[in-house]
């Protein structure tokens, strides 16, 4: 039983996390977003792709709480299903970027030498592109579509995680316990996995949350430009793009996906800030 207990440092962090206001508010928003995405088939009142042309561009009413778009599709249902699309794109792309970034950044820091030099230079080049431009570039080459958006967003997140992991691992590498591990005869691989990785991950957790917010925005931006998720899959950016023609005459068409996007991004950012307060010892008093 004892083996299943969390270590006290983690327990203390958790206790502090539950008291943090940013984490509470951000966490609640993120939880709603995730639940919406997961439960979309069960909670959305209509099929998000099937419209009734007779109900085209209806303002919010009893039948359609958020109104309908030009094709007569229920905007509430499309917002709910849009959450699912954003959830998939952002989490999968961030997950890929984290795994790749942790491995490349960690090895770069631990091995050092020419490997570190080469990795750092490549990351410098990748980071010198404005975020959206890099994603645009990739999307333009591989073409639109859900999988390709994921690849594009993952690629633009990747160098950020490499850099953060490298910085964190460089610090941990200088810790005395790493030398102590060498002194008892640990192999390099074992030092990397048992000592370096577990102690370098805190800033990655914070950054992953913040990058999820940015990724939702980027994915929406790509879709807005027509380079992202393609119809009929509902997506917030694409919904707003569709609303361009009715900007004034039917504002509900873009207002609701806009609010959903804004609140979700805000939620992830609050959560990220809160995690930073809790996990980053420099901000401790």
């Amino acid at each position, binding site marked *: 039983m*004892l083996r299943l207990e969390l270590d006290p440092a983690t327990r203390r962090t958790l206790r502090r996390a539950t008291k943090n206001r940013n984490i509470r508010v951000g966490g609640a928003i993120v939880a709603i977003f995730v639940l919406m995405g997961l439960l979309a088939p069960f909670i959305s009142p209509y099929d998000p792709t099937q419209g009734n042309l007779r109900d085209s561009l209806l303002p919010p009413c009893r039948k359609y709480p958020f109104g309908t778009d030009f094709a007569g599709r229920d905007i509430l249902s499309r917002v709910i299903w849009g959450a699912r699309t954003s959830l998939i794109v952002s989490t999968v792309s961030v997950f890929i970027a984290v795994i790749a970034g942790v491995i490349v950044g960690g090895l770069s820091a631990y091995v050092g030498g020419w490997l570190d030099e080469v990795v750092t230079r490549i990351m410098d080049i990748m980071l010198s592109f404005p975020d959206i431009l890099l994603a645009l570039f990739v999307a333009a080459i591989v073409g639109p579509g859900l999988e390709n958006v994921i690849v594009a967003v993952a690629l633009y997140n990747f160098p950020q995680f490499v850099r953060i992991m490298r910085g964190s691992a460089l610090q941990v590498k200088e810790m005395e316990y790493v030398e102590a591990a060498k002194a008892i005869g640990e192999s390099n691989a*074992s030092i990397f996995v048992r000592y370096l990785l577990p102690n370098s991950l805190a800033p990655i957790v914070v950054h992953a949350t913040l990058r999820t917010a940015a990724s939702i925005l980027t994915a929406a931006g790509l879709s807005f430009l027509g380079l992202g998720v393609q119809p009929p899959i509902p997506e917030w950016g694409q919904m707003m793009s569709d609303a361009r023609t009715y900007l004034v005459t039917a504002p509900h068409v873009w207002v609701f996906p806009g609010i959903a996007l804004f609140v979700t991004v805000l939620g992830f950012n609050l959560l990220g800030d809160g995690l930073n307060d809790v996990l980053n010892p420099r901000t401790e008093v």
Partner: protein
Amino acid sequence: MLLVVKDLVKHYVSGGFLSKKEVVRAVEGVSFTLDRGETLGLVGESGSGKTTVGKTVLRLVEPTSGRILFEDRDITSIRDMRPLRKEMQIVYQDPMSSMNPRMRIADIVGRPLQIHGLVSSRRERDDRVRELLERVGLSREHLYRYPHEFSGGQRQRIAIARALASEPKFVVLDEPTSALDVSVQAQILRLLKSLQEERGLAYLFISHDLAVVRNISHRVAVMYAGKLVELASVEEIFGEPLHPYTNGLLASVLEPSPEASAPEEVLPGEPPDPRKPPRGCRFHPRCPIADERCREEEPELREIRPGHWVACHKV
């Protein structure tokens, strides 16, 4: 001889590409030997290079030049030191920072057993760790706790248990009691002594505290600015110190007594910058008896009496 160190040198080079190249001469030609079951105290102030010597001997830091022989085998250029790590261990000053905060005691102390194939199952490992914990004065129940659940003294006991797990012959003790309270320091010194008697361990005991070194060492080496200035038995170092620096250090020691007062004769100045050590004898700017020769010519470590080595022109 268990350990023979000959002309050990360690230089750190910094800068060189855009900034001016600087060479820090941390250790400059240090030689000594260590017998089985013996404790050599290595005394010095900050920047004397004593810790670098300890880590270089274990090849945790690569020597610039010199030779290290362990059990008559030259280990200076062995590529894979890992099998040898079983035989030579280290205990650090700060036990907290020398332990992975995310590992349980069972893993911290048990890893050496697994790495060197000394146990065949997890259960066997845990049993051995329990025995080790008990031997260093901790409870068997502490197995699944984490380092920060312990006091400083208990943590140092854990660090000692880790160092002893693979049954080494030689342990570098790098200021093992400097971060501890006096009452606990005495506990740890006792423990180290009894473990030495029981297992025939050889210690290289690195410390800035002369009184501590007095109480644990058989022989004492005094370092100053990267060099050995005196090496002798503990009785001779404390009874008849020959080097002016050793004398000055001894005069700086404060003892609690009713007659105590601030030290009368003190060494002037401070240890030199290891990037630009003084010419001649490195101690001459602070030395009360230095003369022209000391300013020009570097003294060699000479055997003045059997077993008593001093590097001073005036002795």
